[in-house]
């Protein structure tokens, strides 16, 4: 797909080469501003009309010593002239700001790839910190890459010597220099970033000017030196017409929950305890005070979910959010919400576990915890967004189900979706269906545990409603009256009613659609954040004439009504998951289909190549 990584003759004068897709990775010390450079490159490419997909690779939260291997922070952005679904397997271009960044990222750069390094940082101390015995810029070990060593620190400092900034401030601008350089390489305009700098540093004119100067200096360096023989152009992608913005999964999630609140006409209450990688949703929602959003930074995970349940009891849209370890702490309270049958949404942005695991790395390891991680027969609905922008729709869906069925719903995102970004076709709010809270108000007919015949939902009677005073709680409830009951037959009935209620949500779950053939050959079945890689790998395999189709689950409990029939129509079913086969266990259990697993639990997403090679292994 990408021609960049092919060995090519370098012409004497710069020429413009058209490419259909490029993947760049910015890597440096966590203090080097690589996330920022990557984000700006993304915005500019999006505005330039490319389809984009990004993924940040952030070290453990606590800042590691400067120049050390654990302190390396990376940001990968892929931009393309056609629709893309992943941030790319391997970068075509690696920008390494120091030896540690080179050491940790070089293994991902294919031979022949472009390597831009800041040679100023390749001094004895930094080389030692990165574990290099000799300087890789001199010892010939990088011979198989297209290496450009640029004295970025020096050039940047020289460009800013009259800026009036301190040495430290000047050094901080060097990410802008590198960004400017890559902007030139890929024919990107500077205006989006220049505007952003003014917005960000507007109050501090000198810093704003410094950053702008560094950006331009990097760009002009590319233009005027003969160093880069080629620069590249990636034409606009043909996306569905409409208004777009770039969005991360966590941002889309926050907007989805906010939108659900608007659609329901009920205030949103978010109880949360800070945890990586879910905290961004708290930060986002905390900004939305003018929408009436109440955010409650609780003393712990349990208080966060408890407060959300209390808010739900009062008629708000109760929401709590966390990552895996926090979900474990919330288990008992989620069980309470199952028992009292109130709407509640629990967001889990999954990360690598068990225990504290690897907080900044992604995983799909919480599915079975979400399904079964409570005492007793305690069913909840589960939805899982497939892409960063899909987080918006599935967040709305989570509340639609929670309100309609008076049930907890777990929204299962992950670090890859939450932190990754892609273009989002901004929806027209007017076209989104309303969510009806349908509060009980009539004392003549009110029974706390009477049920809607179609959904089996019980009435939502909020305090403040005259003559509907009633008591709920975690003790087993008598059918209809909701009084405490230890009656054997009643308990059996209530357990089955709660299970049946969640099963009936299938009425609101769209049938699973297949990308490819309706039957025969191999079906690759995924869920959640693997959508991009699976889709791309299957499309490539189909282009090679292989009989492979893909289907992707976004409703995990209950599963779509047509899934059982669909699975039986294929010769074989492959299920790639970033865990040891949790959905496969459920699918086998539900449908007695002998699905094959492709499992990876390294804290990183699948590459397209990994899926492709498994497909090749199965269908030749």
């Amino acid at each position, binding site marked *: 797909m990408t021609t960049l990584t092919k060995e090519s003759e370098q012409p004497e004068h710069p020429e413009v080469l058209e490419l259909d897709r490029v993947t760049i990775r910015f890597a440096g010390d966590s203090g080097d501003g690589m996330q920022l450079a990557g984000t700006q490159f993304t915005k500019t490419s999006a*505005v330039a009309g490319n389809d984009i997909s990004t993924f940040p690779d952030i070290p453990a939260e606590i800042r590691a010593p400067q120049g050390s291997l654990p302190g390396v922070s990376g940001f990968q952005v892929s931009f393309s002239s056609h629709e893309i679904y992943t941030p790319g397997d391997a970068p075509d271009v690696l920008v390494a700001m120091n030896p540690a960044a080179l050491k940790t990222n070089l293994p991902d750069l294919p031979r022949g790839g472009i390597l831009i390094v800041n040679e100023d940082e390749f001094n004895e101390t930094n080389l030692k910190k990165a574990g290099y015995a000799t300087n890789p810029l001199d010892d010939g070990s990088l011979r198989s890459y297209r290496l450009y060593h640029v004295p970025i620190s020096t050039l940047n400092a020289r460009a800013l010597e009259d800026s009036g900034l301190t040495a430290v401030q000047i050094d901080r601008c060097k990410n802008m220099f590198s960004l400017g350089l890559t902007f030139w390489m890929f024919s990107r305009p500077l205006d989006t970033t220049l505007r952003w700098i003014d917005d960000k540093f507007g109050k501090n004119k000198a810093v704003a000017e410094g950053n702008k100067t560094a950006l331009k200096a990097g760009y002009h360096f590319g233009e005027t030196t003969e160093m880069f023989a080629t620069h590249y152009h990636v034409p606009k992608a043909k996306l569905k017409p409409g208004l777009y913005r770039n969005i991360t999964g966590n941002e889309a999630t926050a907007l989805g929950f906010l939108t659900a609140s608007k659609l329901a006409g009920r205030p949103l209450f978010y109880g949360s305890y800070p945890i990586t990688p879910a905290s961004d949703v708290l930060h986002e929602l905390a900004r939305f005070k003018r929408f009436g959003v109440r955010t409650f930074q609780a003393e712990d995970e349990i208080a966060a979910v408890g407060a959300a349940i209390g808010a739900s009891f009062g008629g708000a849209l109760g929401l709590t959010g966390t990552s895996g370890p926090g979900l474990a702490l919330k288990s008992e309270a989620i069980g309470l919400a199952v028992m009292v049958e109130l709407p509640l949404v629990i967001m889990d942005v999954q990360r690598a576990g068990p225990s504290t695991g690897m907080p900044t790395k992604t995983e799909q390891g919480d599915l079975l915890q979400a399904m079964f991680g409570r005492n007793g027969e305690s069913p909840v609905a589960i939805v899982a967004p497939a892409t960063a922008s899909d987080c918006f729709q599935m967040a709305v869906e989570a509340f639609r189900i929670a309100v309609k069925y008076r049930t907890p719903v777990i929204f299962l995102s992950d670090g890859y979706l939450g932190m990754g970004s892609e273009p989002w076709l901004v929806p027209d709010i007017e076209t989104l269906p309303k969510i009806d809270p349908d509060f009980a108000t009539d004392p003549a007919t009110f029974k706390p545990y009477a049920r809607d015949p179609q959904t089996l939902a019980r009435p939502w009677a909020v305090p403040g409603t005259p003559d509907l005073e009633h008591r709920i709680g975690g003790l087993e409830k008598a059918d209809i009256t909701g009084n405490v009951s230890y009656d054997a037959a009643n308990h059996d009935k209530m357990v089955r009613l709660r299970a049946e209620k969640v099963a009936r949500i299938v009425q609101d779950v769209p049938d699973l659609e297949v990308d490819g053939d309706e039957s025969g050959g191999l079906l690759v079945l995924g869920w959640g954040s693997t959508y991009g890689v699976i889709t791309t790998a299957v499309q490539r395999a189909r282009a090679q004439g292989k009989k492979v189709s893909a289907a992707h689950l976004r409703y995990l409990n209950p599963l779509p009504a047509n899934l059982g029939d669909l699975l039986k129509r294929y010769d074989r079913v492959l299920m790639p998951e970033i865990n040891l086969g949790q959905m496969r266990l459920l699918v086998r259990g539900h449908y007695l289909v002998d699905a094959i697993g492709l499992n990876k639990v390294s804290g990183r997403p699948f590459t397209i190549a990994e899926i492709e090679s498994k497909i090749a292994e199965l269908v030749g």
Partner: protein
Amino acid sequence: MVTAKRREPIGPSLSRKDFVSDQEVRWCPGCGDYSILAQTQKVMPELGIPRENIVFISGIGCSSRLPYYMNTYGFHSIHGRAPTIASGLKSSRPELSVWVVTGDGDALSIGGNHILHVLRRNVDLQIVLHNNEIYGLTKGQYSPTSELGKRTKSSPYGTIDRPLRPLSVAIGAEATFVARSIDADAHHLQRMLERAYQHHGAAFVEVYQNCNIFNDGAFAEFTAKEVRADRMIMLEHGQPMIFGKQQDRGLRLNGMKIEVVQLGNGITEADLVVHDETLDDPTIAFLLSRMDYPEYPVPIGVLRAVQRPTYEDLMAQQIQHAIETEGEGALKEIFLEGDTWTVE
């Protein structure tokens, strides 16, 4: 009273029986909880709140059954977590009167963290802690307020963990209202519940509650009628701290210590501490919270009642301020934050 909130009675006047639910009360006969329930039901009509605006929220334990017996909205939740549910409800529905019913194990053991934080946030709740210094529902293990060395089923050789003083914990957690009462003193208990309601902010009331099955007479040596006057002191705002059947003893400050003095022989009322529940400095309230029999008379009444902004008011103000200064939120404008582009 600086902390009073004024509310006019609304609607038809209610009586105690309007607050009695149709559920059979299932505490052991003779339990102190009966009195607490009765006083609570008696006080409710006096508060002038529409019944539908009252919510009782509890955790787990004998005391936490109370919401089932109140004909109001109620939520019997999970162990220790009532303050969290109450915080979510009150901060999103400030117009409701939200009561938390808890016990010594529920509030100070499994829910210890939540008690600290609900108090420091000053959420306008009435938190009534039934303290019987034992685990009753689980049939007689020691609790975080059981005295050191207590022999119970789970401590046959005596406990080795030092008890908490609920009122000291509350004061340490920045509580704005701290009071104590006794199950058997119906009048005093009613008064404390009323005061708790009138306080705008988190009101913490410890009620000595007798568990006649597993810890009978835990408080009798100072609460029994015949000794009460000599072994307890009734705190009254603005009054010198006097106690005793003959009203002949008092409390005096000696440096950083409270001491018991006999009036006469040159010691007069003027030497005694005058109780001021509105002191911002919590030092004296804290000293009072540590007074145990027999060294001291055990204080009942309001130890502390100070005015601070409540959590839900501050939350509402932030929302109001944001709407006034930034304009009411429009989704469209948030959707289009940052750079946008159009694909034709």
